[in-house]
């Protein structure tokens, strides 16, 4: 009886090994968390609270840092946009710069966004609490 069970297990394991062998997946490059869903919520403009999302993203960023995992492309820039829309221009600048540092490929676009921020945030900055 135990021999039969172990034979079945062996066959099952062999079957799974065959299936997995074809579809071998390397370790992910990034820790995604809820980032795709967060982008979806913002694209939909469905009234999902940006404040709640900013907080959730902070937690995700801390988790990734603690686990020594990389944040995905666009994560910092997306958070920067939310900060900007909440009136935190300085924080947005830091995050756009952080996106650029993590992904130098983003430089042309980030520089455009940063340039635009510089030209329009001078008066707004005085109102922003530190």
């Amino acid at each position, binding site marked *: 009886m135990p021999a039969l069970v172990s034979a079945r297990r062996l066959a099952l394991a062999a079957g799974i090994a*065959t299936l997995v062998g074809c579809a071998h997946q390397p370790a992910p490059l*990034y820790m995604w968390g809820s980032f795709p869903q967060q982008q*979806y919520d913002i*694209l939909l403009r469905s009234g999902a609270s940006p404040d709640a999302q900013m907080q959730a993203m902070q937690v995700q960023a801390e988790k990734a840092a603690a686990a020594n995992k990389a944040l995905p492309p666009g994560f910092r820039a997306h958070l920067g946009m939310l900060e900007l829309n909440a009136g935190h221009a300085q924080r947005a600048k830091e995050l756009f710069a952080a996106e650029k540092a993590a992904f130098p490929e983003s430089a042309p*676009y980030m520089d455009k966004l940063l340039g635009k921020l510089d030209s329009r945030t001078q008066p707004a900055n005085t109102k922003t609490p530190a």
Partner: protein
Amino acid sequence: MSTIRLLPMALVAALAVLGGCANKPVPYDYTAFRQANPRTLLVLPPINDSPDVKASSSVWAQATLPLAEAGYYVLPVTLVDETFRQNGIQTASDAQDIPREKLRDFFGADAAVYIKVTKYGTTYHVISSDTVVEAQARIVDLRSGALLWEGRAAASSSEQGNGNNSLAVLLVSAVVKQIINTTTDAAYGYAGIADSRLLGPRVNGVLPGPRSPAYGKEIAAQ
């Protein structure tokens, strides 16, 4: 007796070989893709041919993951969306009609990903409901205008086992499925699967990009 026992085993073995890794579709011609060697991708808002207004956002939001995991820098779609809106671009087809030189100049991406959603959502039948997402994509070099890659993929709730029981049970499960599918935005989940099938690693799929450990290697032999 022994042949009767062996026959099913042989059949299983034959099916495993046929159904496993041994499918050999016509190899994709990657000449233009390799020559262009893009590092950054701009995914444009997908054109939606389905009746569901959420289709474009859903497929767009989930296209970044497979492409980033494939080793590309993907421009943040929510910022791209905002940039288009601030510049008076209201629809996906308007965005996809922008001349490539302008896209290249503004976003600095090497290539753009043009997606069209051909099916999205749940259709209700008498005894079952199906959620289907189907999309096609083209990757175009923004520097030269060359077509680097194109493909299509789908994901559907009917892929999962439907094999059961009496009509009464089926009627109930159709209603339940319908409720689940609408309340939890089921199509969003299938859009994620369709996106990863469309843009993720596979035979004749998008080549691995510079940030991937598989960069320079193909999924299948030539």
